[in-house]
């Protein structure tokens, strides 16, 4: 299974954990977003022990440990610590018994404590790990939220992606990221895009330089992240190329193995790209709701031809 390295400092900050003891290592290798509560292992049952997961100790496990015969407990815990689990987290701010602390120190394992209740902690942990372990890629383009659709504008440098996005922002749509978009695969068919933190909501416009969209257009003009719904590829108008005139067949492109509808829009001076992108977003939403304009017109045409034939 694929290992992802997460800086310990980051998980501590995100999950608001208190460090009880930790090895010298600054990172943690994790392969799964699942967690394990090791009650059965403490009882001596180690078959199918998910030792690759983060181990969470709740009230039940802790009370059980306290009730155990000390020598049997020591034996089971030693066996437990023989497995290379990523770390151990105690919930509910419970006191850490000395025997547990000593074993964690001896085995150079990280032991954290959280103030959250066990199920809340587990829920937060799975959410956080799911996002941290998701496959990621940085792509060149601009991501805009147009009528609620995540539109990813792609194309060569200088084609006018940023200018199009600026016009869209002016028309009331929201900018997610300009130029560099970090795309994360959060589920089998779902991609979320956001801006690298450093350049969030900044934009470069040739001839003007760097502008801050949030300061200029206000908080309503930006959004931090957005699922990707359609890819619009801008390219210089090529007279030798055939562009889609009907929209009956759909083209797709793949990002991180997820298929997204792709629209190629030829760019020519005087073409108002922002309006075309708006129309593409509206059309996508209509198709999403089950209405396909091209199909509808084709159906009407076929009905008329059929009628004329009968007469």
């Amino acid at each position, binding site marked *: 299974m694929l290992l992802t390295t997460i800086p310990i400092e980051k998980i501590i900050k995100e999950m608001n954990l208190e460090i009880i003891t930790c090895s010298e290592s600054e990172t943690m290798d994790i392969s799964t977003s699942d967690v394990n509560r090791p009650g059965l292992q403490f009882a001596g049952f180690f078959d199918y022990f998910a030792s690759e997961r983060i181990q969470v100790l709740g009230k039940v496990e802790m009370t059980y440990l306290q009730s155990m015969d000390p020598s049997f407990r020591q034996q089971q815990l030693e066996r437990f610590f023989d497995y290379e689990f990523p770390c151990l987290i105690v919930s509910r701010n419970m006191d850490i018994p000395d025997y547990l602390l000593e074993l964690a120190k001896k085995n150079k394992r990280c032991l954290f404590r959280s103030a959250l209740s066990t199920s809340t902690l587990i829920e937060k942990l799975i959410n956080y790990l799911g996002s941290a372990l998701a496959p990621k890629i*940085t792509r060149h383009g601009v991501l805009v939220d147009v009528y609620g659709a995540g539109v990813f504008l792609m194309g060569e440098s*200088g084609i006018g992606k940023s200018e199009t996005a600026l016009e869209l922002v002016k028309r009331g749509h929201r900018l997610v990221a*300009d*130029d*560099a978009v970090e795309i994360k695969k959060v589920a089998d068919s779902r991609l979320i895009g956001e801006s690298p933190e*450093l350049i969030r909501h900044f934009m*470069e416009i040739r001839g003007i330089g*760097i502008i801050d969209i949030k300061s200029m257009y206000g908080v309503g003009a930006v959004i931090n992240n957005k699922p990707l719904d359609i890819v619009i590829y801008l390219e210089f108008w090529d007279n030798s190329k055939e562009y889609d005139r009907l929209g009956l067949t759909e083209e797709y492109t793949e990002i991180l193995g997820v298929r997204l509808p792709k629209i190629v829009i030829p760019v020519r001076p005087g073409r108002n790209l922002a309006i075309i992108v708006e129309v593409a977003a509206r059309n996508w939403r209509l198709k999403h709701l089950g209405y396909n304009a091209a199909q509808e017109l084709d159906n009407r045409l076929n009905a008329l031809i059929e009628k004329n034939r009968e007469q």
Partner: protein
Amino acid sequence: MINTDFKIMHEDGLSARPAALFVQVASKFDSRIWVEIDSKKVNAKSIMGIMSLGVGQDDEITIIIEGDDEENALKALTELIDSNFSRVPEV
């Protein structure tokens, strides 16, 4: 395709001004050019992309160039980095 590692010696790293020079030089070529650091890969012709990397002094970057004029692009970018961003090469 060429893949070359560089160390950025400029004391400000690839902050706004050096980044702008870098993008200016890269944009003169038709080849597709990327800069990669810590598995983050961005288009070298995009100033926002380059700045989003937060490259500091002594950081190592990989420049990836693909296209017909890749040799010339590498030469120009090498010259720029070697001059510590003090001289923009003639293209």
